[in-house]
């Protein structure tokens, strides 16, 4: 298998994730897009791990999965706190710190 097919799949998922982060208004949907980005990174790590015959890539992928789990936990807690305070998770309405 070509290395590039995995890297291009990763790039595609990354770009789609970036689009989701920019275009979505719902806080939960933005967090889902961030998951897409983290998965793109993981695919790259595993592909390079297989290319070089080095297990460090797989270990780092596991670390990324752990950090992603922590990120989702805290992110959803923040979204819940925002919803409780403002009765909405619309990110466009979050202009509390606008000057």
């Amino acid at each position: 298998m070509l290395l590039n097919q995995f890297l291009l799949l990763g790039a595609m998922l990354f770009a789609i994730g970036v689009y989701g982060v920019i275009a979505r208004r719902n806080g939960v949907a933005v967090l889902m897009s961030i998951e897409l980005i983290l998965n793109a990174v993981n695919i790259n790590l595993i592909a390079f791990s297989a290319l070089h015959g080095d297990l460090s890539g797989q270990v780092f992928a596991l670390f990324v999965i752990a950090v992603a789990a922590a990120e989702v936990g805290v992110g959803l807690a923040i979204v819940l706190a925002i919803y409780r305070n403002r009765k909405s998770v619309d990110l466009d309405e979050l202009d509390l710190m606008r000057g």
Partner: protein
Amino acid sequence: MMVLASTMELAGVDDPINVSQTVAFGLIAVMMVFGALRVVTTKNVVHAAMWLVLVLAGAAAQYILLAADFVAVTQVMVYIGAVVVLFLFGVMLTRAKLGQEADLTRKSWFGGAFVAVLLFGLLSFSLIDTFEDSKIPEDRQMGLGATVQVDADTGEVEGSTDPALGSNTAAVSDTIFSRYLVQFEVISVLLTAALVGAIVIARKD
């Protein structure tokens, strides 16, 4: 000495291409890209979570294709088992109605699409320019090196150096608990701190 990427020796340029693996990759990749597009375009957040399951399962399948079986199992357990359930709870707790939502995407989504297309073009150009025909070695199963292998009498981890012997989970655990032990402990503390912090943030008082 640092070697520039453009002067790097490319691995396996002359290797043959395994047709069945490439076809499997293509099918899964098309499924993943379609699912990812649906995640960012669908009007229903619950449906977005379901499409996300498809993408995550596809990623797990790609890991198996790359002989990273332990990471694939972890992906299924952590992402599909826990993270998606967490997302569904998030949707449930932040929305009264479960259905179509017109204002899920911004009115000015063209900017985001432009940025994404530009980013993908730039990334794919540089990737194709750098790695050209570099191929992943046919024998991707990585066992423990001969120097790390321990005798069975001592009761320590024994991984196989024979690539035909399947799983490399023993080798992965050996790498984590020797070379990356400190990082592993730091991740454990980070995860605990994050979950305690999540409870503190989400509490009512």
